């Protein structure tokens, strides 16, 4: 038991780092659900493609100049293209895979199934163009193994701190955007009452597209961070990561932005506790137990309200 308690703080820090990244991915699910009431099951693949883009940029930079890579300029060079490309990919999915269905009055099931199809399509597209074998992130060239330090007896790597800082900064930027800008207000208006948003003069289609852009860009950034952390990526990595982030979004209350962040953090911490106290092999079991328990006992999640509450006056 003493041994377990000794590694607990360490595990909690890992859990926190993973949790903030789950939160980033969960934001994509929750924002899209907010405006379209659909689960974008291809979001995990968008995350995976973000990881591939970060890997590609890092590989090219290493080709050009081995050594001398400092994360301060390399990390933005990995994150920005991944975010822009994934954002564009998300908008493309919405425009060509989902909108043709919901715009013609299909039930919610239509876009959902189309999303499953898009997910399979993207996995195979990456497999065919990049190969089925794992790609190795050259994380060591960016964050050398000895970049670690002790805080209160807990040994933490710089990479873990960077993951937390980058995720929190991106979340903060999103919250400011959603709370304080015209685009953010439009997104909230569309997610609350699409018809009234249109009556305000909002171009609902464009707002939905921008929502996909933002959610997918965050997913792309998360892909880069996870790639750096686990150092190995493949074309199916989006599946389990996507399901975990989806669990985080449901746990926090799907459609709720604060819920996605809190749900992600909680899930990361719960996982780290499971690894510490039960068995690392049970990590995913615990995640999906959380999903099932949430759906059975508190389907609206921690921060979710049922729609009816707001329509009652």
């Amino acid at each position, binding site marked *: 038991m003493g041994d377990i308690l000794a590694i607990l703080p360490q595990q909690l820090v890992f859990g926190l780092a993973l949790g903030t990244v789950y939160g980033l991915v969960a934001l994509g699910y929750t924002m899209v659900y907010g405006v379209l009431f659909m689960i974008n099951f291809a979001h995990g693949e968008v995350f995976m493609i973000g990881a591939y883009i970060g890997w590609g940029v890092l590989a090219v930079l290493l080709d050009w100049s081995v050594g001398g890579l400092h994360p301060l300029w390399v990390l933005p060079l990995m994150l920005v293209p991944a975010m822009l490309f994934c954002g564009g990919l998300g908008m493309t999915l919405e425009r060509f895979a989902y909108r043709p269905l919901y715009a013609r009055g299909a039930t919610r099931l239509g876009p959902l199934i189309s999303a499953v199809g898009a997910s399979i399509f993207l996995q195979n597209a990456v497999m065919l163009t990049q190969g089925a074998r794992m790609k190795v992130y050259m994380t060591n060239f960016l964050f050398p193994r000895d970049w670690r330090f002790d805080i209160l007896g807990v040994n933490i790597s710089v990479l873990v701190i960077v993951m937390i800082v980058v995720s929190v900064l991106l979340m903060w930027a999103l919250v400011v955007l959603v709370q304080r800008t*015209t685009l953010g*207000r*439009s997104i*909230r*208006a569309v997610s*609350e*009452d699409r*018809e*009234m*948003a*249109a*009556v*305000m*003069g*909002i*171009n609902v289609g464009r707002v939905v597209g921008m929502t996909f852009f933002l959610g997918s860009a965050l997913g792309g950034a998360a892909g880069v961070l996870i790639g750096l952390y686990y150092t190995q990526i493949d074309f199916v990595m989006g599946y389990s990561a996507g399901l975990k982030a989806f669990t985080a979004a449901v746990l926090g209350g799907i459609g709720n932005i604060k819920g996605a962040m809190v749900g992600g953090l909680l899930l990361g911490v719960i996982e780290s506790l499971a690894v510490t106290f039960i068995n690392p092999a049970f990590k995913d079991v615990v995640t999906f137990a959380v999903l099932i328990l949430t759906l059975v006992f508190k389907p609206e999640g921690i921060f979710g309200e049922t729609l009816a509450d*707001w*329509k009652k*006056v």
Partner: protein
Amino acid sequence: MLSLTDVVTYYGPIMALKGVSLGVDAGEIVCLLGGNASGKSTTMKTVLGIVRPRTGTVEFEGERIDGLATGEIVRRGIALVPESRRVFGRMTVWENLVMGSYVRRNEPKDELDRDMERVYGLFPRLKERAQQYAGTLSGGEQQMLAIGRALMARPRLLLMDEPSMGLSPALVDQVFDIIQEINRQGTTILVVEQNASVALSIAHRGYVLQNGQMVASDTAAALLKADDVRRAYLGEE
């Protein structure tokens, strides 16, 4: 200012408007009466382009607007106070008013501030509660917010769908006083109502819809006296 000619609108397979024609002149308050499912709300939605007419035309200030996107119609000067208010409950009162001025978001800020003050002048309660979530307001306050939100678009024609619904008689009088005040300040108003006596008391003219067809059209005073209207909408036998 607004004219509908032989408008036929479908809701799925159901023919909701069966050839409706009506006209509203600048400066008027026109009231559209009718029972449940008579097509009143569909008429509003057709004007705003939320549903499209299958045949017939909608003209605003001499130009056809049927077929335009809702946003474009709002930009041209038509705003809606919807049935059952439908304020954005998870936004503050102030944010709701800002959303109302969405089509004018590129105009100078002091123009918008002036209109905001004008709305606060009409509804001092909204100013007191500016930072409160709209979902926490009472029904009457939400109605005021819905009206204020529509005014922020600075419409020349204001559509109002059942503004008296769910309000106490005292509040209904207050809301209709404000409708008259808004009209005096230069906004043309088309109001849909089930509460015919109150609506006709402030309107210049009125129309009566039944099963998607216009069955009567006259001055408000004449409609108030007409026997069949009294029987059908004023609850008098």
